[in-house]
């Protein structure tokens, strides 16, 4: 897509206080196809956790954009990511979600591969009257060009021309650390039992919503009422509190990533991390008071383009696979901290089911809103006014908070906060990095 077209689809002129996203970006199937090539098959994509591969020969399957992949640990503990397709007729090699096996045999004609992705058997090769070129050819599974991990989070890129994962994540790494370092052994895992659901809307509705504090008190008002009733009945565990003024803020990072956070003087519910005072004391001693304070603050992290990690009274890893401009498949996991107490784990699971799980009391309201947005985008009503909150704030407004974490965000914002309050800031400028990266990747793809 040429620059001129991209500039009409995403208008980004901060000098004129203008930021607008054309609804075609959410509804046009041609734009969707371009996104799949340029974004989901063009940059680092989150594929899973290394804790999903607990022993040699463990595997799990997933997708990178439109393409099925299998992630396997070989006999030496080396992890690789391969296209999940037999080299013979292109059959989906492994139809299972996860498991452990030394050899993957294609059901169609029996070609077989080891966990290092090497072809170890071509059925009846000797009698096949193959030409010499076949015998000399590589029959191994096709390796996904780039595959790296950070703190146990696995990312892969179908495009070889990407920087190191570390460079890609940049300062967003600090917010991954704030999750992983809650574990005394520095490990996170999926609590068993995943949830997959779809919504009839574009994937960027999820991208935006995961960074949107503004919607909470309206979209989730029925949930807010329930929380208030529960608080009257009593609470369990230590309730996080702070002396600092209540605020909501965000950091914008390079390459599309962003994070929202909130500072509450008094939380009305506990956290797995502070359910037990002695566990909290141990974390403070290990990571220091400042980082422990940040671990207790609600943080909604987006690693562009397909990962959100939300940490509050429970923690969620949310990832998605766009199916079309109008349909998205979501996979949601309860994120577990390895080494936490059984009570903290139980508290975490109940909190996850309550809020994050789609059959819970909140996520389905988001899904319904995405579908109403997608339906509303059919109206040709001109530029939407949904990227304006925080436009007048200074780009480095949350420098104090950035300094505490020793990070250099591209931009930051901070405003009035109040737990789920209608008068809170709820900035929208934290959507900008995603759309700037969207534009950069689509422009880069068209130049290829």
């Amino acid at each position, binding site marked *: 897509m040429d620059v001129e077209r991209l500039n009409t689809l995403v208008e980004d002129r901060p000098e004129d206080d203008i930021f607008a996203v054309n609804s075609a970006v959410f509804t046009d199937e041609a734009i969707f196809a371009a996104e799949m090539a340029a974004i989901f098959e063009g940059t680092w994509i989150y594929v899973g956790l290394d804790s999903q591969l607990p022993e040699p020969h463990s595997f799990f399957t997933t997708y990178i954009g439109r393409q099925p992949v299998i992630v396997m640990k070989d006999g030496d503990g080396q992890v690789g990511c391969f296209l999940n397709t037999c080299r013979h007729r292109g059959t989906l090699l492994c139809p*299972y*979600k*996860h*498991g452990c096996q030394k050899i993957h045999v294609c059901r169609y004609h029996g070609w077989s591969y080891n966990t290092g992705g090497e072809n170890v058997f071509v059925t009846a090769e000797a009698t096949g009257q193959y030409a010499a070129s076949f015998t000399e050819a590589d029959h191994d599974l096709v390796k996904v060009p780039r595959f790296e991990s950070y703190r146990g989070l696995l990312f892969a890129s179908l495009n070889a021309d990407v920087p190191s994962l570390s460079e890609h994540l940049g300062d967003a790494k600090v917010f991954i650390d704030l999750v992983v370092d809650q574990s005394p052994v520095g490990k996170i895992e999926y*609590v*068993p*039992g*995943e*949830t*997959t*659901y*779809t*919504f*009839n809307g574009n994937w960027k509705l999820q991208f935006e919503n995961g960074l949107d504090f503004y919607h909470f008190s309206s*979209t989730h*008002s*029925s*949930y807010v*009422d*329930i929380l208030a*009733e529960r608080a009257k009945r009593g609470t369990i565990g230590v309730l996080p509190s702070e002396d600092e003024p209540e605020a909501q803020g965000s950091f914008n990072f390079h390459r599309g990533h962003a994070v929202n956070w909130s500072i509450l003087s008094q939380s009305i519910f506990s956290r797995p991390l502070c359910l037990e005072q002695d566990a909290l004391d141990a974390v403070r001693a290990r990571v220091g008071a400042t980082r422990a304070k940040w671990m207790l603050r609600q943080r909604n992290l987006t690693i562009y383009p397909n990962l959100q990690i939300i940490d509050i009274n429970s923690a969620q890893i949310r990832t998605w696979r766009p199916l079309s401009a109008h349909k998205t*498949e979501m996979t949601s*996991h*309860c994120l577990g901290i390895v080494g936490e107490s*059984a009570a903290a*784990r*139980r508290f975490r*699971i*109940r909190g*996850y*089911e309550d809020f994050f*799980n*789609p*059959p*819970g*009391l909140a996520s*389905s*309201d988001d*899904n*319904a*809103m*995405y*579908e*109403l947005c997608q*339906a509303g985008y059919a109206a040709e009503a001109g530029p939407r006014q949904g990227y304006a909150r925080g436009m007048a704030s200074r780009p480095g407004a949350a420098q104090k908070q950035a300094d505490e974490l020793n990070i250099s965000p591209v931009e930051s914002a901070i405003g009035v906060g109040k737990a789920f309050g209608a008068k809170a800031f709820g900035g929208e400028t934290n959507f900008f990095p995603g759309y700037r990266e969207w534009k950069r990747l689509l422009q880069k793809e068209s130049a290829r």
Partner: protein
Amino acid sequence: MNATLHVPDGTVGAFARAVASDLILTEAHELDSRNWAAWLALYSVDAKFWMPAWLDENAQSDDPNTQVSLIYHESRLELEERVDRVNSLKSITTMPLPRTIHVIGGIRLLAHSEDRIQASSSANVHVYDPRTSDHHIAAVRYSHTLSRTGDGPWLITCKTISLINDRMPSVVDFYTV
């Protein structure tokens, strides 16, 4: 299995089967009619309401303390919260409320005693969303445990829902499964 429970036989078994069948079908009727208070009244105060998640293609979560469930409630109070959310007219998922039909079949009496009945059944739950005109069918298997105290009414003390098509649509709640 509890030693006080025994395999149904004769007229006692027929009575237990009728009780189970009546309560399971009544529950479906109250849900489809949106008689939320009447639905809640079928449950004991300490009722468990559980829809496990799938761990892989074959196995479902069986320990709510260490595994995620799709829905897990340990008291009627938690079901009341769900009903309050629907009644509040603040949840987007109920504006408008999907229409449902629970088509129940294959009710089997598994065990019974004087004060306890266990039964399984299967259901197609038709969910029609007037907002989107989408029609979705939840394919489920139920396990009901019914109990009563003295001559009191039979109440549901445990309902387990096994949802086989677990790639879910955007809205799944107590009335859509």
